[in-house]
Structures are given as structure tokens and as C-alpha cells.
């Protein structure tokens, strides 16, 4: 992502570092209005952080299916059920 930072601070503009923290935070608590607005602005422009967000969301899904499947010796394959 190419980002220019014209002189002076722009409070609405996040770096990827800041965005990554907000993405994580958003999975654990509701973001405030300005947090949400600045994150949305960043995500509209940043492909990398969209990937990161998708990865975090996928990890949550994987960890929850890991626990509900209870991982048996293959008789309870979570993938099987989706095919029904």
C-alpha cells in the first residue's frame, strides 16, 4: 500500500501497525466511533490489513471448530458435516 503523509499529523490516518491492533481489539470489544471510522478508512485502502483481518477471523473460526469438534479419531470430521 502506498501512503503519503503530507505534512502534519492526521489523526484519522492509521498505520498498518495501528490498524492491526484495532483489528484485533475489534474481535474482543466493541470499537468506539472514531476507532471504527479510522479503521474503515484504512481498510478501504489497505489490501494487506484486509488480509490480516481475514486471517484473524479465520483463526477464530478454526479455534472454535477445533473445540466443538473435540477432535476425535476421525469419526467426527467437521468437514464431513458441512457436506450434508
Amino acid at each position, binding site marked *: *500500500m502506498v501512503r503519503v503523509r503530507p505534512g502534519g499529523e492526521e489523526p484519522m490516518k492509521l498505520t*498498518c501497525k495501528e490498524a492491526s491492533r484495532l483489528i484485533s481489539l475489534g474481535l474482543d470489544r466493541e470499537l468506539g466511533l472514531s476507532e471504527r471510522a479510522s479503521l474503515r478508512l484504512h481498510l478501504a485502502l489497505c489490501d494487506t490489513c484486509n488480509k490480516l483481518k481475514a486471517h484473524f477471523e479465520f483463526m477464530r473460526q478454526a479455534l472454535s*471448530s477445533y473445540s466443538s469438534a473435540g477432535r476425535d479419531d476421525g469419526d467426527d470430521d467437521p468437514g464431513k458435516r458441512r457436506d450434508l
Partner: protein
Amino acid sequence: MPPPVIELRELESHRTALVRFAMAQLRDETHAEDCVQEALSAAIQNADLFAGGSSVRTWLVGILKHKILDHFRKASRERAIVDDESSYDELDARFKQDGHFIEAPAAWADPEQALSQREFFEVLEACMDRLPGNIALVFRMREIMGADVDEICDELSITPNNCWIMIYRARMSLRECLEKRWFASAPGAKSR
């Protein structure tokens, strides 16, 4: 409709899987067996509460999670969880001075498909095992036990801010580990 009936034998048939799940969380066979025993006893006593909507396994894992959380709670009273004072800044190694990623996350090919592969869950487990102790504990409580941050803070006597930082660190590490050990090498993961 008559309430669903669960037979003792059926409950017992899940024991092995439950112990494996508990082992993954607790890393201690005796504690894992204890938690599973408690969960099965609770299930037998409350069999009439089983709603029948979900599978028996899901129901049992739900009970087991509570028992494991109880265990974490007791354990945290015995050994104080070190309040992880390290700030976000410790993670700056992943970012350049200007806040950009040094190594940007790659596109993951067909993550949905990974969820149907046993090998993926083995990698996931191995990656979870690599998380440092306290971070792993907080992250497991959050993502596997489904506790919210307030509960975790209460139980471990840490601040919400610390909790969020620890979870963030866990997510960043786990993400990198999965990318390296699964998505960069999994069959069919060559589209970049």
C-alpha cells in the same frame, strides 16, 4: 415430544476425545482426566438439561470448557499470573519505523478447505503450543473457552489493556506460524 435420552454408554464413548481436548488446553494428564471426569459427572447429573439441539459432543465440550475454566481459575490463585507489562512496542519488530509491515501477510489459499483437514488442526495445535505460557493461557481462555475479556481479567487479576495486548500478540504469532507451517506449504496452497 419426549426429552432426548442420553445413555451412559454414549457419554462414555466421548471420553477419549474429551481427554484429548482437555490435554491440549491443560498440558497435564492428571488435570485433564480430572476435568473430564467432572464434566461427565455433571453431564450425567444434568442429562435432562440436554436440549437435543446440538450434538452430544458439542454439549459435552461446552461443559468441559467450564470445568477447564474452573481449573484455570484455581491454578491462577495458586500461582500469580505475571501481569504482562510489556507494551505493544515490543512487537514493533514486525513493523518498519513508519508503521508498515516488514513482511506483509500473504494471501491464504482456500482456508475453508483447511478446516476439513486433520493435518491442519495438528499444525494449529503445534502453533498454539509455541505461544508463551501466559499469552497461551489468556488466548485459550478467550478463543477456545469463549470467555470474554472482563472474565479473563477477573479470573487472572490482570488489566483489560494487558489482556488485549496478550491476545494481540497471540494472534500475530499464531498467524505467522500458520502462514509458515501450513499456508505456504499446504497442497493446493500455491496460488499467491
